């Protein structure tokens, strides 16, 4: 069992007026950065790094970072900078990047070099993860959306080759061309850091991930469609002659733990307040569907069972596919209610788990039994949560939740990609420290 910690690093500015029912427009990609205050940014970047260091002290196996652009809900536009700092200031935990947005890189050789440097500085603690990104990312860095999937695949092939094939060599591809590939930086891990692929909706991506025998990490999707998506991975695995197991399954979900049920509820409500990810139901921001649904960005029809979540489908501009998936002619009232997703509703369906260790551990156990992931990430400290909220939770994770979850993981025989090789399904000998 691999247990990681994640926060999306929201840009929290109490003075901006953007968040908290002030009546200002909260639409993603429709907000000017004129109100961005670098002094607040400085405090927040340092706070989030401090929290990551503390998470390592509290026993987390992995510190997960993610990347979004031109938006206040995630400050990780250049998460490789944060990763490089963590590589130096932490000692043991894996640094898990989920993930770099490959198609928006015009020069993926530069990315190959950055990741190799991070892997070396951390002495082999990098887990690299690659995504296609949302429409926001393609707009923010002006990457041509119809070639998103082609660029993802070619950039992947190129980076892996740059890491593993002795240079210099030449690369004349469809989207990337190099006359001299010979990076003077190679990954510390042999042959290269583990590659994990996060996702939410694209069936193409799951198929491709399974074909490469990479772990697939589902990001805060609802339980039943998540299980069905894993089952799709399992099917593709069987078609490719291997049995998918827990080491191929990763899951990120919202868990906050606190000293009392009252504190837990107060902090848990903050998940859906403030500059929290507008993709997710109940959050205060709106998305502009036509930007998320850029032309040719994702398949119109080849979607995962997660499309049954209206909020998720709407966030990708896939309302019509959602209606078809759930058999509705038109958006109905239940959909709207689902999209508005009150805190109570989300707690009921375990989209948010918050409580004292005593109440949280059984719920986490249920998730592990139901989904059987070998790697999990607790998503905490988000939305409007303060540093104090995060630190209380981290301490209780370390004191009570992580030890209990490790035991549950053992009893369920949940193995991470560091215990069982996803390529061979054979046990990995623990490295001699």
């Amino acid at each position, binding site marked *: 069992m691999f247990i990681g910690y994640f926060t999306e690093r929201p840009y929290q500015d109490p003075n901006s007026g953007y968040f908290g029912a002030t009546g200002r427009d909260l639409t993603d990609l429709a907000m000017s950065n004129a109100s961005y205050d670098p002094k607040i940014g400085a405090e927040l970047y340092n706070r989030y790094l401090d929290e990551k260091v503390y998470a390592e002290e509290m026993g987390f196996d992995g510190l997960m970072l993610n990347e979004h652009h031109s938006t206040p809900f995630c400050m990780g536009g250049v998460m490789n900078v944060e990763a490089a700092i963590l590589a130096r200031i932490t000692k043991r935990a894996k640094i898990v990047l989920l993930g770099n947005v490959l198609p928006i890189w015009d020069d993926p050789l530069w990315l190959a070099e950055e990741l190799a440097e991070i892997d070396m500085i951390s002495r082999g603690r990098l887990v690299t993860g690659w995504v296609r990104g949302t429409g926001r990312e393609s*707009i923010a860095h*002006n990457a*041509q*959306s*119809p*070639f998103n999937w082609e660029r993802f695949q070619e950039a992947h092939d190129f980076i892996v080759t740059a890491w593993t094939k002795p240079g210099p060599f030449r690369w004349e591809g469809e989207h990337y061309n190099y006359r001299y590939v010979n990076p003077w930086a190679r990954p510390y891990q042999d042959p290269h850091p583990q590659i994990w692929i996060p996702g939410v909706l694209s069936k193409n991506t799951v198929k491709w991930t399974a074909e490469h025998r990479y772990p697939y990490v589902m990001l805060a999707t609802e339980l039943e469609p998540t299980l069905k998506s894993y089952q799709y991975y399992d099917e593709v695995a069987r078609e490719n002659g291997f049995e998918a197991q827990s080491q191929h399954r990763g899951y990120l979900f919202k868990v906050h733990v606190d000293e009392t049920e009252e504190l837990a509820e107060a902090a848990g409500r903050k998940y859906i307040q403030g500059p929290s990810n507008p993709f997710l139901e109940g959050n205060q921001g709106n998305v502009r*569907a*036509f*930007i998320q649904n*850029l*032309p*040719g960005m994702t398949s119109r029809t080849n979607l995962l069972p997660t499309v049954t979540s209206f909020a998720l489908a709407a966030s990708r501009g896939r309302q019509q596919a959602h209606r078809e998936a759930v058999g509705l002619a038109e958006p109905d009232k239940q959909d709207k209610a689902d999209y508005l997703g009150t805190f109570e509703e989300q707690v009921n369906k375990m989209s948010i788990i918050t409580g004292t260790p005593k109440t949280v551990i059984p719920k986490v156990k249920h998730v592990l039994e139901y989904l059987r992931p070998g790697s999990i990430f607790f998503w905490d400290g988000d939305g409007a949560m303060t540093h104090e909220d995060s630190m209380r939770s981290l301490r209780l994770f370390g004191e009570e939740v992580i030890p209990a979850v490790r035991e549950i993981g053992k009893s369920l025989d949940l193995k991470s990609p560091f215990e069982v090789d996803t390529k061979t399904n054979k046990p990995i000998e623990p490295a001699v420290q």
Partner: protein
Amino acid sequence: MTTATASHTETTVEVAGLAIRVLRGGAGPAAVFLHHSTGNPGWMPFHEALAESFALAVPDLPGYGQSARPDWAREPRDIAVLVNRLLDRLELSGVTLIGAGLGGFIAAEMAAMNQSRLSRLVLIGAAGLQPNEGEIADQMMVDFAEYVKAGFRDDAAFEHVFGAEVDPGIKSLWDFSREMTARITWKPYMFSRRLAPLLGEITVPALVIWGEKDQVVPIACAHQYAKGLANARLEVIAGAGHLVELEEPETVARLIAAHAQS
């Protein structure tokens, strides 16, 4: 004015291994109309009006509508090469080449590379040049239906053409057209810095037609085309939007017919 025949035929022509659909109707000297980036909705009243004076061919541009997609195409010039070959296949000569919006961009590229089959060039609200003033409206940042609406002088004009409830087939055409457009003109968006320097080489008599209230391609581009082309004249249609040929099909068709006879 007598009503022209409503009949038109549909043919498929192969160019570079791609099936290109062409609608044809009318009689007279040859004319070819190249549609906007939103695709060709069908045999429109504007086509009917042109068919009174011309033997008109309206291809679905490669990658749009019923025409096969050239996966390799990366810019409007690639489409221009294919449509020039289409003119060869159709054995057309003395052609009045008419292009609107992105179709105008492609028509200008075609004329820049080979004007031997052309007798006249007509550019309607044509993209292709970086405006001296203002910017070309970016359809990637709005819903595709909103983008089409922005092409009309007002919502009433939009509804007159597409109805209050847009047909799902038309919406689908807009949706898929946008994907092809994103493949061939993403950055820079809807213009090429390699077109303007060639305009002076286009000697075929050109008519530039623009809606006075065009909110999509700034009217600055009308003046840039009129000035840059070796032999051009500008007609601004008072009060009209970007989709001037849909708003005022008779007026625009009459201007083109007169230009062809001048």
